[in-house]
């Protein structure tokens, strides 16, 4: 018979507030197998854990039940406590009497009675627990970073510097991401290209890093330490290793009318192109949708012109299979589409642009070589209006816009306003804001400089409507402090659009079985304590794919994700999950139902000799579970009619014991 200890936690007043913890401890004292019952204010604290360790030694306990918060919170803690006291860590069961009892029931009697039932359920389960040993599985010493923006670049560099191989998969022809499109960066106003391109070159020259540009991940199999990923390298029709990036072909290509997505369509590029000068890899790419040679077979100018004859029209998409120990999602963000915001007339007038488009206009490598002009008539704008929170901070029920604050718009708008006033002192700049949020080192000082030294007019009040009249834009907004309605003319309006995760994030999450929140940002394992890990072991989050953030925060989170990956790859062996399936060979029919439902292919079959009737030997086909591959989902246990297949830690008898305890 088991010797079980029950420990009821008060969790300060979180549990004790609506559950009579003493009565629970008292009631569970005379449950079958219980030899010791105690309660304490903070069971997970140092003192609480000591109390458990002493009780284990003193009463020679063979199993413990902790009635406390959710097992997802402290199951690990109490398992380590048991292990420290010499008890097998899997002889611990947690009854969740906080999130699923005290916090949701006001009436003490009801809460206490439920807590007792939940305690009784855990005791019934621990009575049938058996000590389990975690198996081990090897770790592939290579990491995969999905996304080549600053987040992906920084993570890859940090991991590679620790000596591990890293592959970066980037959908665009070059790494660099959104940061490559920026002009200056806040709060120090140093030029984005100057601080990014050296890192891009480091990545290109780092012997441990391999870049798969113009590629995407199409399939992920396996689990932490043993991922198998299929990468689709889209046909570029240019031989990467031969092309020197001289750009001759990009000048001679006759197809000139291709909207240049790097400049957000504000100018055109050729069918064969290099996104920007400092592109890494500096290799041309042919756009199959526009290249007449690929569409009709009649052209071939780039092939004739190319001195290194690196052009190959017959190139096909390539599928590469590779093994990885860890995967980092760094898919980045995009501004949301402005189509639905017709009150700002984004689609009616070319002079209403988003901040990213403004960034390209200010950028020396941009469509207008850095001259700030109105996209409609190319004239220099005398009056510019910046509109904040466009699409951010909207109600959940509003069908357009996002609920969250996009965090970076106040700072980059202050930057834009300051740069405009600095370069064109005669231009009048007005910013309509709800509140300016500048939480960061030197952030507020930066915003004050924009307002005080550069004379940017900050008006507290949202813009209600923008209507193009003639070549001017009529801006109607409210000035809450002066309690006036402002109707002013503007030559250029810049909308600070909300940002959302990249479209490739949702399919990627499905492949990685990583969970996402309702806005398609990756959900972190714990919002405060584990922000760079996904709940799926072996998957890490870096940059805006986890939530809106600026460059300083992205780089620090990229470093954190890299540290977690290095921590994982440094291990030679990974402690597996001991709660895996196990087949009882005496009862197994060998019918392959379990093998068919196993998502990981962890079940194989062998013919084994058994003692048959009157000294004959019987050969029977029985199932074998590879404990290193099995992840313990339990699907096979239900597919198996005879119950031969069972799951350690969640055995059928244990679950039925829990059902009985609940329904008694």
């Amino acid at each position: 018979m088991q010797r079980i200890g029950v420990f009821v936690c008060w969790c300060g007043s979180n549990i004790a507030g609506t559950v009579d913890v003493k009565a629970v401890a008292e009631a569970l004292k005379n449950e079958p197998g219980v030899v010791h019952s105690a309660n304490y204010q903070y069971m997970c604290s140092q003192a609480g854990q000591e109390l458990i360790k002493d009780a284990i030694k003193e009463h020679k306990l063979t199993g413990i039940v902790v009635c406390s918060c959710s097992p997802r919170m402290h199951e690990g803690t109490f398992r380590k406590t048991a292990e420290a006291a010499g008890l097998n860590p899997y002889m611990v069961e947690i009854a969740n009497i906080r999130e699923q009892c005290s916090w949701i029931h006001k009436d003490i009697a009801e809460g206490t009675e439920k807590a007792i039932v939940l305690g009784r359920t855990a005791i019934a389960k621990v009575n049938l627990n058996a000590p389990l040993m975690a198996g081990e599985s090897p770790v592939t010493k290579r990491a995969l970073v999905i996304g080549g923006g600053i987040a992906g670049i920084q993570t890859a560099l940090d991991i590679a510097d620790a000596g591990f191989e890293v592959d970066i998969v980037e959908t665009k022809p070059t790494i660099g991401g959104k940061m490559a499109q920026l002009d200056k960066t806040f709060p120090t106003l140093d030029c984005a290209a100057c601080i990014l391109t050296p890192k891009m070159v480091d990545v290109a020259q780092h012997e441990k890093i391999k870049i798969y540009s113009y590629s995407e991940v199409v399939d992920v199999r396996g689990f932490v330490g043993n991922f198998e990923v299929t990468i689709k390298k889209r046909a570029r029709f240019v031989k990467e290793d031969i092309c020197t990036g001289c750009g001759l072909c990009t000048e001679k290509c006759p197809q000139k009318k291709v909207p240049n997505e790097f400049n957000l369509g504000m100018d055109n590029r050729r069918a064969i192109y290099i996104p920007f000068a400092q592109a890494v890899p500096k290799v041309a790419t042919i756009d199959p949708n526009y290249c007449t040679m690929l569409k009709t077979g009649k052209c071939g100018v780039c092939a004739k012109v190319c001195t290194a004859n690196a052009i190959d029209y017959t190139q096909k998409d390539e599928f590469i299979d590779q093994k990885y120990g860890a995967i980092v999602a760094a898919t980045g963000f995009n501004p949301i589409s402005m189509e639905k915001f017709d009150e700002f007339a984004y689609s009616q007038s070319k002079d209403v642009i988003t901040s990213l488009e403004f960034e390209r206009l200010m950028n020396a490598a941009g469509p207008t070589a850095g001259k700030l002009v109105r996209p409609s008539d190319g004239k220099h704008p005398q009056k510019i209006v910046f509109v904040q929170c466009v699409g951010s901070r909207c109600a959940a029920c509003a069908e357009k816009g996002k609920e969250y604050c996009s965090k970076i718009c106040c700072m980059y708008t202050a930057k834009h306003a300051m740069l405009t006033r600095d370069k064109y002192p005669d231009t009048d700049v007005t910013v309509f804001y709800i509140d300016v949020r500048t939480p960061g080192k030197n952030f507020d000082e930066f915003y004050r400089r924009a307002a005080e030294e550069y004379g940017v007019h900050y008006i507290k009040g949202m813009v209600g409507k923008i209507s193009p009249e003639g070549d001017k834009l009529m801006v109607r907004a409210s000035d809450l402090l002066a309690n006036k309605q402002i109707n002013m003319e503007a030559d250029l309006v810049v909308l600070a659009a909300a940002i959302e995760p990249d479209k490739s994030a949702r399919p990627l999450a499905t492949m990685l079985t990583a969970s996402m929140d309702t806005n398609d940002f990756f959900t972190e394992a714990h919002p405060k304590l584990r922000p760079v890990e996904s709940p799926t072991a072996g998957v890490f989050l870096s940059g805006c794919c986890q939530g809106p953030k600026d460059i300083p925060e992205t780089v620090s989170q990229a470093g954190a994700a890299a540290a977690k990956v290095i921590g994982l790859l440094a291990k030679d062996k990974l402690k597996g999950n001991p709660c895996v399936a196990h087949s009882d060979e005496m009862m197994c029919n060998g019918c392959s139902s379990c093998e068919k439902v196993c998502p990981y292919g962890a079940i194989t079959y062998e013919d084994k000799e058994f003692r048959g009737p009157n000294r004959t030997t019987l050969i029977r086909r029985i199932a074998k579970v590879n404990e290193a591959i099995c992840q313990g989902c339990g699907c096979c246990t239900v597919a198996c009619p005879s119950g031969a297949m069972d799951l350690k830690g969640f055995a059928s008898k244990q679950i039925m014991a829990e059902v009985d305890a609940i329904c008694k």
Partner: protein
Amino acid sequence: MQKINREVLINKANELLSNGTINRVFGWEKGDFSYDVTPTIYFTADQMNKKFIFDDFCGANFSKYLVAETKKDQNKVGVFLKPCDTYSFNQLLTEHRFDKEKVYAIGVPCDGMVDEKKIKAFFGEGISSITSEGDEIIVDTLYDGVKKVKKADVLQERCQNCKSKKHVYYDELIGEDGEVLDSNRFDEVEKLEKMTADERFAFWQNELSKCIRCNACRDVCPACTCEKCVFNNPNSGVENKSPANEFEEKMFHIIRAFHVAGRCTDCGECSRVCPQGIPLHLLNRKFIKDINSFYGNYQAGEQEGSRAPLTNYTKEDLEPSEAVNKGDN
């Protein structure tokens, strides 16, 4: 009356026994009553001459016996398989329950088997002998002489709605192969589905409470070939030999139907052998009807190695809430 008479089968068996292809053969043996036919293994031709029979009462499906029989002896065992038996044979092969090299299957066309309960329903208990002539059954009763009844009126339910006369597996076929028939075997299920919940509950409570848990249905079912059944296994948690009330029968029958769901070939043996005459096939047919309507038509055992619906999925399967409402259209 079966077109193939017993001499043809005996000669075939004898031929195979003598040329050493097989050293024993499964066949039907005449029991005390003419409707009481039991499966037996024959080793020699004269044993067969004495007891072998093939008439309108040979419903027994030998596929399940092969699981144990092929383990006893290395050489081949001969087996006569009616069309519906061959589906069970294929399903057992799919589940690797025996090695087909150890079996020599002889396909036997079948013209439908008779249900003795129906004959008793006509003539009561006093029956001394039953013989069949053409498409008529001649019943020699103790008190009121010789009676005749049309064979079609006393066919077994599964033969009235015979789903296929086609042998899906045989090493050798006697006579020609038949066709898959489109039978209206689901009418009974539809009739039940159209009832209200209370009527259905009353129907099943009345039927299942007759159950004496003799486990004949499980022991004859070719899909129920577990080494150790959960209901017999003391540490399975659901072990219960004799139920204390009608729920435990329901639990036994629901779980058994669930275990064979997607694997049951609808051979109807469970209803044939049930001493209490419970229409157990209606449970399995409900699962087959649901699988057909939810996931596309699937006939277990039609094709060896096919993937059972419950070990498969598509991303667009319907939700359980929709399934429950769709069930009673």
